[in-house]
């Protein structure tokens, strides 16, 4: 079932000379990047460098001050179910049960009842929450809530999944388990993933390509291919190859921030 046809296809997302400022100063300045169809790209950078802002623009929640975003051949000026998002903070709706949360987008896009049922069942199985389908989010642990969030975003079978530091608030064990599980999910699903994190190791483990972002202004500092083959297991983190790439990137980040912000 592993879907290994992950050679670079046509660019799915093209970011061309993006600028964005909330107030007077630009947070994002001249940011350009091409992301291929079904690629798993991570964007790494210190907090406050504009990662969330960038994802919000791709999602269509913010409009760039200057520059253009292309999704296939259109400009996404509005959020759409072809690009869903997993948020940095807890965004699972507390007033809905687990299954109602997962069903939310399916209802919003008016899928027929039978299809909704099947999709919800499939995703509950995929994220391992079948037994908790009737629970409210307050009854779940942080890791379980993140699983709900991921399932909810994937229910619409988006072409692009935007993930904003989804595992940052979790403890190491839960986090690593979710990383591995999520890689399995991605391997079996034809999705382009843009994964934002401040955790270099996480980015290296998950993605095919890592984009290092600088702060003030936020722009592309370095792009690195990660040649490790998928599917990956956690042990790959201890391999010499992994450590070598990590060392190189740590150096880049140290050079960028005088050793203060990088990890």
């Amino acid at each position, binding site marked *: 079932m592993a879907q290994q046809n992950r050679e670079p296809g046509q660019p799915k997302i093209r970011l061309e000379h993006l600028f964005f400022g909330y107030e007077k100063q630009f947070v994002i300045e001249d940011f350009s990047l091409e992301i291929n169809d079904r690629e798993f790209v991570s964007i790494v950078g210190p907090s406050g460098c504009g990662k969330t802002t960038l994802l919000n623009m791709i999602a269509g929640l913010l409009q760039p001050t200057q520059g253009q975003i292309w999704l296939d051949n259109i400009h996404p000026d509005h959020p759409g179910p072809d690009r869903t998002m997993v948020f940095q903070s807890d965004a699972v709706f*507390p007033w809905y049960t687990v299954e109602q949360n997962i069903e939310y987008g399916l209802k919003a896009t008016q899928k027929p009842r039978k299809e909704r049922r099947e999709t919800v069942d499939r995703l509950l199985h995929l994220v391992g929450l079948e037994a908790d389908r009737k629970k*409210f989010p307050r009854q779940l*642990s942080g890791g379980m809530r993140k699983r709900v969030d991921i399932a909810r975003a994937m229910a*619409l079978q988006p072409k692009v999944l935007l993930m904003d530091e989804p595992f940052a608030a979790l403890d190491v064990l839960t986090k690593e388990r979710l990383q591995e599980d999520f890689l399995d999910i991605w391997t079996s699903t034809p999705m382009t993933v843009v994964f934002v994190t401040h955790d270099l190791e996480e980015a290296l483990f998950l993605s095919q390509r890592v984009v290092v972002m600088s702060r003030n202004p936020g722009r592309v500092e370095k792009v690195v291919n990660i040649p490790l083959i998928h599917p990956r297991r956690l042990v790959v983190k201890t391999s010499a190859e992994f450590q070598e790439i990590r060392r190189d990137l740590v150096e880049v980040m140290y050079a960028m921030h005088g050793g203060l912000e990088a990890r």
Partner: protein
Amino acid sequence: MISNSSEAKDQPGAFAPPKARVSFLKRRQALGWLRQISIRLTVPLVLIVIWVIVSEMELIRPLFLPPPGQMKQAFENLDSLLPQAILTTTTMTLTGFAIGTAVGTLMGLIMAYSRIIREFLGTVFDFLRPVPVFALIPLFILWFGIGRAPQVALIAMGTSVILGVTTLEAIRNVPPIYIRAALTLGANRRRIYRTIILPYIIPHLIGAIRVSAAASWGLDVAAEFMGSQQGLGYLIILQQTYLRTSGIILLVIVYSILAFITDMVIAFIEAHITRWTERRTSGGIVASIIGLA
């Protein structure tokens, strides 16, 4: 495919207490109830005792504070009139309250939903909000005459202002993250109102609903004082004309009981529609700090 046994352990209910402990807990619970009831009744009982002492020793003239014994007589005097009066008053108050709550909440929602309507009605709304509704009673009587309609309208107006302001404010406090999530999942404005904003604000409106329920009874009394031929407020005025203080006190108690029951019903409904809220999980020291236990 993917199990999450490491996370499953922190689910509630994973550790059931042994049987012996259950019966112990039950006994403790029963004791807790007794304790609670006796604590709750202490202050009313003390007040009644003071009332008896004060009137027995004739510290206050019976015209101002009749002895408790007279209450029975007052009840017998009013007995035949009470059911009809309670029915009239309750119907009017609850009708006005229901209309006001619905209209106020709707106004708040509409004003948040549409900028045009907000700007259109905003000024009027801002002007009306601080006007003491009681001051409008004479005007209402002048305009609409004496009767049920102006009284219901008055109660509805007082209630709707409270709910309108609270609704608008609650909507502004909806965390943007939920709206962003809904947008990326394909929801439109209408759906966001129905599935995000409404569920989010309901727990925040409960406080205002309870306040306005209490205010409704107050508005009803005032309205009946001004002009009415039936109802509890009208009976109070009647008692006043005949200087029957005990009758007034009795009627006030009836009002209090009605208001108390309304509040209990609202609290009961709240507990059922806000099962999802975080505070339902607060326990121990947290609950004690925020006044839940």
